[in-house]
């Protein structure tokens, strides 16, 4: 139940970001859906670095396929759906440790935050690249005309 509530919140967060970044119509719902999927994967994997990787990959697959269907740039969907996963708390606590002069804690928090951000980016990139290399073959198979994302 708690998980469902959190996914709903992640969905609304993405919809809010869609308003801020001037995205219209169906795009808002797609961003919300992407955010919810990402948070679901992230939570079922117990919020480790690997689950962040998997969540980013799931979001990338989702937004790449939607972008193909709608013939829109994938950038908007992918970026906005990834935003709930950005390690904001890590950045905040790292900064706080730094200000308070707790340098050991600062470095360990900073490193885990950077690792988290890198795994997000890596997951999204990997899934996108795999999708891009596999998709043209599927599209060719169906004999439909392929176009740039």
């Amino acid at each position: 139940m708690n998980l469902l509530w959190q996914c709903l919140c992640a969905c609304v967060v993405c919809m809010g970001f869609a308003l801020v970044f001037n995205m219209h119509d169906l795009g808002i719902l797609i961003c919300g859906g992407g955010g919810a999927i990402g948070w679901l994967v992230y939570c079922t994997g117990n919020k480790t670095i690997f689950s962040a990787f998997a969540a980013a990959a799931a979001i990338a697959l989702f937004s790449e396929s939607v972008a193909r269907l709608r013939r829109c740039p994938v950038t908007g969907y992918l970026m906005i759906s990834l935003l709930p996963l950005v390690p904001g708390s890590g950045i905040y606590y790292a900064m706080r440790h730094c200000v308070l002069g707790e340098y050991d804690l600062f470095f360990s928090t900073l490193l885990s935050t950077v690792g988290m951000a890198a795994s997000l980016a890596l997951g999204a990139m990997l899934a996108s690249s795999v999708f891009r290399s596999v998709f043209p073959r599927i599209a060719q198979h169906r004999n439909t005309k392929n176009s740039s994302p």
Partner: protein
Amino acid sequence: MNYDKLLNVATELGCQLMAGGAEIYRVEESVFRLLSSYGLEGIEVFAIPNCLIVSITTPLEHPVTRMRRISGHGTDIELLERCNDLCRRLCQETPPPEVAQAQLAALLPQYRRYSRQKALAGYFLVPACFTPLYGGGIRDGICAGLAGFALGLCLLYGQKLIGGNRFFRTAICSAIGSLLALLLVQVGLGQNLDTITISVLMLLVPGMALTNAMREIMAGDVISSISRTAEAILTGTAIALGTVIALAIGQGL
């Protein structure tokens, strides 16, 4: 065909794509495709986040180059999608450059933008719904929403007051956001100060710039990736600077 006009259209389109927040490879590829669909050869496109250089060779072996400097760029998905649509259409139909220029000029004033009220609703919703993700309750959510709303007011209406410098704008906004969070907790509405502050600051965190930078370095555009990473680090520093003020005041209390 008027190649000067064609070059102008292509450069302007690339510029607008960049202003909408497109990745470097998308800008370069769009301009390249547009020009090559007109049957040109010897097209060179080079883009970094604040500069776009396009060079073509006309059929008479005459080289033409255009450079555009792109000042500020935010993220505007609607602009990005409309420009992408237009580019695709131009590639398929290849109308005369004059028509293409008119279409591009008509696109810019008429694409849809949210009114400030709707954007403010976004600024309220984002922090309010971030708190449950960081383990906060309903009351924390309301506090974060209010602080985010104030931050949005600052960003949207306070352009003249807080100046155009991006660094100081971010620092001031984060100071306002975290001070408001502190105030609301002191008043007794909020319970968990850290959760509220983090949720508000998520509005300013350069998540877009950072993920874009990572995507670009994987795509091989190292220079623009470095420039975007530097931008993200700078924004992060500004946020930290703003928050430190609130933290210092909080510890004094």
